């Protein structure tokens, strides 16, 4: 006999953090290592891999607040406990909706940005 479902699995909802100059709409976080050193055996099969020099990259989008100052490249932007270096800023508006800002930023593993 089928039984009613009486329990659920909770999931992480929405964003990790907020922004001071815009009402945050989305975040997109990616991590990768720039150094990928592979060691092959006599058959050319990879038997060892060394990953290092991690990049944390983030894209934040939001609606600009009236008093918000849009940051510029090379400034730091904090998000969810990490200070990222801003690499790119998009600031777009049209005449019938809110002004949207998109920030692309990066954290280098061996550069201290505290």
């Amino acid at each position: 006999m089928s039984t009613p479902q009486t329990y659920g699995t909770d999931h992480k909802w929405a964003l990790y953090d907020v922004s001071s100059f815009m009402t945050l709409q989305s975040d997109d976080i990616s991590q990768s290592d720039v150094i990928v050193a592979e060691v092959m055996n006599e058959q050319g099969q990879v038997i060892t891999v060394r990953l290092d020099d991690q990049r944390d990259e983030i894209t934040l989008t939001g609606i600009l607040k009236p008093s918000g100052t849009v940051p510029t490249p090379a400034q730091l932007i904090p998000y969810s406990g990490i200070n990222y270096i801003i690499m790119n800023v998009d600031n777009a508006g049209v005449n019938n909706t809110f002004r949207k800002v998109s920030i692309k930023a990066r954290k280098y593993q061996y550069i201290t940005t505290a």
Partner: protein
Amino acid sequence: MDAYGSGQTEQRNQAIFMSTLPIRSIVEESLGSWFNQNITILNNATVSLGLSGQARTLPAVIIHCESSNSPADLGAMPLGNFELTIKIYVYSSADDDPSWEVARDKHRLRCVAVEALMADVASIKSNWVQGTLYNVWKVSDDESLDGRRYGNLMSYTAFAVYDEGVQPFSFGN
């Protein structure tokens, strides 16, 4: 003969009782509790829940969880998560006050009060009777006049999940 034995079909169809609440009842009872705690700002309105047999007198606020869908992000495995459409009806009579203008203004203040109660997501979460409310937000607010009755239909979207733990249930009469 069905799984309940001969002659039990009608009894089975009367009700399926679960110790836990269905998601619609969770929504309506949670919001009903929160609204009733703040009944003074609704200015004498009676709060009732969607599919209620309760007699309704004006002014009235009716909370109804109209639809319960699986969140698109979870595809074929909703896992007890729900995307919900909540309709809140606010009705007032133009004859309850010395003038229709006063009645209209009081009606609109009731609507503003409903909006304020629904915007306090932290308090709604703390009044959630079972499981977890992820978030709730306003979608629309439409006003109309029917005879000498003012009515607003306020629509909200909510996302919620049942309790993590398995709840006991039973089939009753």
